[in-house]
């Protein structure tokens, strides 16, 4: 009996071992499945982050590209996290005499007149020919424009700032949508008032900034009003 019992015990123990082995195997394969799942999910997340970061870097460096291609009217504004709108297509830079119809108001770039508007801190009280002003933007100027809804106190304060800032100019523009708008080559934003901190930020970033297609070009000896 002893041996039979032992044998029964043995076979019982073998069955138990087999069951434990089976459970371990199941556990291992579950772990393996989980590990594969974790790795796959991680890879997808990492890939997503890499793609996202690349797109972000690419978007930030887009303004470096200023090749003179692309057709008139093509493109649209894309608003950045800082509220600055960037034209998403390359803006052409030809000197032309025929009238150009710009796809944005006030225009931020495109073909323009051979003569730039003086932008050496020049404040104009009458609307400008946009074809001259666009040439000033090409030279790295920031253009402050306002319509009839802008309060006089804001106009005076902005005029004082422009007068102190070489490579800036200012003029009324009754065709524009918002009371006060700031433009540079390929860039534009609306500000709430002359004291809006975004005014200083825009000037700091874009007066002779990275977006300038023709760095070093002059704001003097062009057209005056």
């Amino acid at each position: 009996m002893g041996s039979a019992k032992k044998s029964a015990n043995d076979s019982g123990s073998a069955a138990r071992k087999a069951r434990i082995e089976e459970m371990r195997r199941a556990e291992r394969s579950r772990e393996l499945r989980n590990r594969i799942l974790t790795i796959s999910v991680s890879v997808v997340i990492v890939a997503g982050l890499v793609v996202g970061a690349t797109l972000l870097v690419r978007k930030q460096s887009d303004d470096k590209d200023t090749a003179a291609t692309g057709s008139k009217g093509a493109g649209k504004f894309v608003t950045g996290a800082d509220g600055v709108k960037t034209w998403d297509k390359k803006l052409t830079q030809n000197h032309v005499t025929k009238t150009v119809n710009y796809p944005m108001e006030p225009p931020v770039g495109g073909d323009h007149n051979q003569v730039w508007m003086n932008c050496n801190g020049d404040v104009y009280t009458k609307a400008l020919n946009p074809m001259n002003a666009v040439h000033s933007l090409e030279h790295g100027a920031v253009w402050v424009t306002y319509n009839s809804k802008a309060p006089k106190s804001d106009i005076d304060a902005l005029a004082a700032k422009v007068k102190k800032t070489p490579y800036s100019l200012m003029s009324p523009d009754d065709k524009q949508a918002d009371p006060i708008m700031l433009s540079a080559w390929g860039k534009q934003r609306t500000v709430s008032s002359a004291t809006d901190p975004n005014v200083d930020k825009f000037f700091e970033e874009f007066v002779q900034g990275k977006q300038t297609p023709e760095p070093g070009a002059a704001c003097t000896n062009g057209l005056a009003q």
Partner: protein
Amino acid sequence: MRRAPWIAGAAATALVAAGAISYAVADGDDDGTKAPAADSADAGFARDMAVHHQQAVEMSYIVRDRTGNEEIRRLAYDISQTQANQRGMLLGWLDLWELPKVSSAAPMSWMDMAGMADGKDGALMPGMATNTEMTKLGKLSGKQAEVFYLQLMTRHHQGGVHMAQGCVDRCEVGVEKRLAQGMVNAQESEISLMAGMLKERGAKAS
């Protein structure tokens, strides 16, 4: 298993950083704080274009003294202001990089174009006028000076665009590459402007 999210997070961060850095480097957006080598395209372009620009500045001053035509005088003003300033940027970078303003290598070696110009009579690089041509410009006046200036400057710009494209293709310092691309675009636009001005004067580029 509990460490997995940790590892995944760290890996993601490292990969994003590596991706952003390699993208920025591949894009040539070196921030310019690290000095390029003396024989690099960045240094070569800064040296050679500073010389090339100087002659355009000089040529423009001369024609402004030789004609009263407003259109020509404005074009010359635009070119001299722009190129004098750009030349200052190029020389300033060489100063910051503590690199010499001259090289014993032939002009444009950095873009595999050594020996493109024979360097005789002051025409050191493609497009540059000879000293004889510069002297002649200073003796002409009125429409003759205008036409000769437009012809010399068209040739000068053609050489300039070609060299600037060399930097666009080879330079690694982002700000310099951007300036070179700006030169290509602006000078190409001026070449077509000058073609129109020559036509109005019954002349051709060459």
